[in-house]
């Protein structure tokens, strides 16, 4: 069925307003879109790692989740959800389940790329029928914007601050989507809340309804940590995609598919300029750093084009 916003408005929202995410946060946009891809008759068990999403959507005595929700700890959303999924299969064997339940784990880049990586890798390798969604805001935002392995090179964070000697985070961003593709699971995708959210929605649908483990890496801009003008979230996402900093692609049964190829690939400075976390790069001394960033963006983009047969 073709993506149609009007039709989709008929689906009941599975996450409510009244949560405490910052005004303009990218994470709930991602979450509501992913949950929208569930069939109305399917129940969901959602496990969320400690982080912005979890503390803000489930603060006693309130919960913004209409499905079943569990938070246990920071590094184990994948393990916790894998246990729930195993329970489902066990109870189904003895006729104790009704209907279909889908298993979704959400984690920020902290709880996914770093502390949660082991649990993610283990759960994916074991082949549980679940989806792991990383809402990637590129730093440990909940504790106040500390660097993660997902933080882009030279970004200013509180543990990789731009100082007189060191211009921000010195390592390039870890490529988790590629790592997950190397797990050889049925479905991996890199996506973002782009334009009318079709890319994100359809990938969420595929992830949910492809049997076995699936992984979605979703760019989720953070107005506090990235320091852009809050209303411009969708424009920031657009720039990330048009500069090829955050390409949209899928890996289906090991086959790489590019979902969006910019007609005019924009220079990466277009993406960096509106964000305060990169502001220190726009000085004469730091020109070389901008070139470094561009070079790496191009290298990864070209490699992706090769993999997708689009070179």
């Amino acid at each position: 069925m073709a993506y149609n916003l009007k039709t989709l408005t008929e689906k009941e929202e599975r996450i409510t307003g009244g949560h405490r995410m910052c005004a303009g946060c990218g994470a709930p946009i991602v979450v509501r879109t992913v949950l929208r891809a569930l069939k109305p008759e399917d129940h969901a068990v959602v496990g969320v790692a400690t982080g912005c999403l979890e503390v803000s959507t489930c603060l006693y005595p309130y919960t913004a989740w209409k499905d079943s929700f569990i938070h246990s700890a920071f590094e184990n959303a994948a393990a916790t959800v894998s246990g729930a999924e195993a329970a489902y299969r066990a109870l189904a064997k003895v006729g104790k389940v009704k209907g279909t339940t889908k298993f979704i784990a959400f984690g920020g880049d902290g709880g996914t790329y770093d502390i949660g990586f082991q649990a993610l890798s283990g759960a994916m390798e074991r082949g549980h029928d679940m989806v792991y969604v990383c809402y990637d805001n590129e730093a440990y935002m909940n504790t106040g914007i500390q660097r993660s392995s997902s933080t882009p090179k030279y970004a200013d964070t509180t543990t990789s601050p731009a100082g007189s000697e060191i211009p921000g985070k010195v390592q390039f961003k870890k490529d988790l989507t590629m790592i997950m593709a190397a797990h050889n699971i049925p479905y991996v995708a890199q996506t973002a809340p782009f334009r009318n959210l079709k890319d994100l929605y359809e990938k969420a649908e595929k992830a949910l309804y492809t049997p076995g483990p699936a992984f979605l890496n979703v760019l989720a801009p953070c107005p506090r940590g990235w320091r852009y003008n809050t209303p411009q979230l969708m424009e920031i996402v657009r720039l990330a995609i048009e500069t090829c900093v955050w390409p949209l692609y899928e890996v289906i049964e090991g086959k790489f598919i590019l979902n969006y190829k910019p007609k005019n690939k924009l220079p990466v400075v277009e993406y960096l300029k509106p964000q305060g976390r990169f502001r220190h790069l726009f000085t004469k001394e730091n020109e070389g750093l901008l070139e470094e960033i561009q070079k790496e963006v191009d290298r990864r983009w070209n490699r992706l084009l090769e993999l997708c047969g689009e070179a």
Partner: protein
Amino acid sequence: MAIKDKLSGNEAIAVAMRQIDPDVVAAFPITPSTEVPQYFSQFVANGQVHTEFVAVESEHSAMSACIGAEAAGARTMTATSSQGLALMWEMLYIAASLRLPIVMSVINRALSGPINIHNDHSDSMGARDSGWIQLYCENNQEAYDNLIQAIRIAEHKDVQLPVMVCYDGFITSHAVENIELIEDEKVKAFIGEYRPQHYLLDRDNPISMGPLDMPAYYFEHKRAQAEAMKNAKRVILEVAQEFEKLTGRKYGYFEEYKMEDAEVGIVIMNSTAGTAKFVVNELRKQGIKAGLIKLRVFRPFPFEELGKALSHLKAVAIMDKAESFSTAGGPLFTEVRSAMFDYAKDTKAVSYIYGLGGRDVRPDEIMSVYQDLLEIARTGQVKSTFNYLGVRE
């Protein structure tokens, strides 16, 4: 008609697990608990159980997966030791506070460092504040019996707390002894079905678990948890009564061995109690009024009952197979003596830390403890409250 067999502690536990046939087992290997998931995996592979076995990639994930499974509504079990228990430390607290009746065997092994794979109680003692019910076992029979009872204790509506069943690594886990097993159907009937009130897979009543709790609420949630542990005291005895009807074997908070007219005694847990009973018998042959108490339930702590049970002794040695590095005795000593302050003020109490890292404990060493106690009883003086047994000074 009970089934007579010869099994190691790990084999016995695996058999109990097979008979319980839990919905999910998520486990990671670590010596000396490894055999438990190994034997159990064979049952799974042969279709003898309906269990979903999740071969997780670490003990932290083992407990996390157990939490997810139990929260979802499945009866869940696991097993570990030492570093594995230590690795899942934060999750133990979370399992208890989420009120999930997970049942775990802890095959007691020393905590590193240095790394040591042999028996002592530092692992489960380290988890004593986690909110788990702790049952300690002298031998394979007790391990088997306690595991089966643990399911009923944990899942009781007034408890809803996880239970760890602790038995000694290698000494109990790997040594083959006689055992009396219960028939499969009788175990099944005894444990019944798991019927949680709140569970994630209840699609008609979706639920959120594990919220962020502000200061306005956290204390009340903990208070409720403490009440559940208090209820466990009662439930443990109720379950034991039912178990006695089923098997004829009696269980309480502790076993009192030749305590009725004892003047000196020791408080001890797990396998060394067996050695100590032999020593008590030898002393009795000499006409010495020696006895011992073998503690089964450490959490919840039977404060009043244990205190009262020691009150008629002249002197007691409280034996710890763990150091808490307080410099003032081991964990068992601290808690027992606190109870004695209320109920056994006139009894002299001394601490012995023994057997760390699997150091063998010989009858003559236990005998020397009783000799010390007899001296205290005779003189009314305690020369040394805090002692080590069996270390080369």
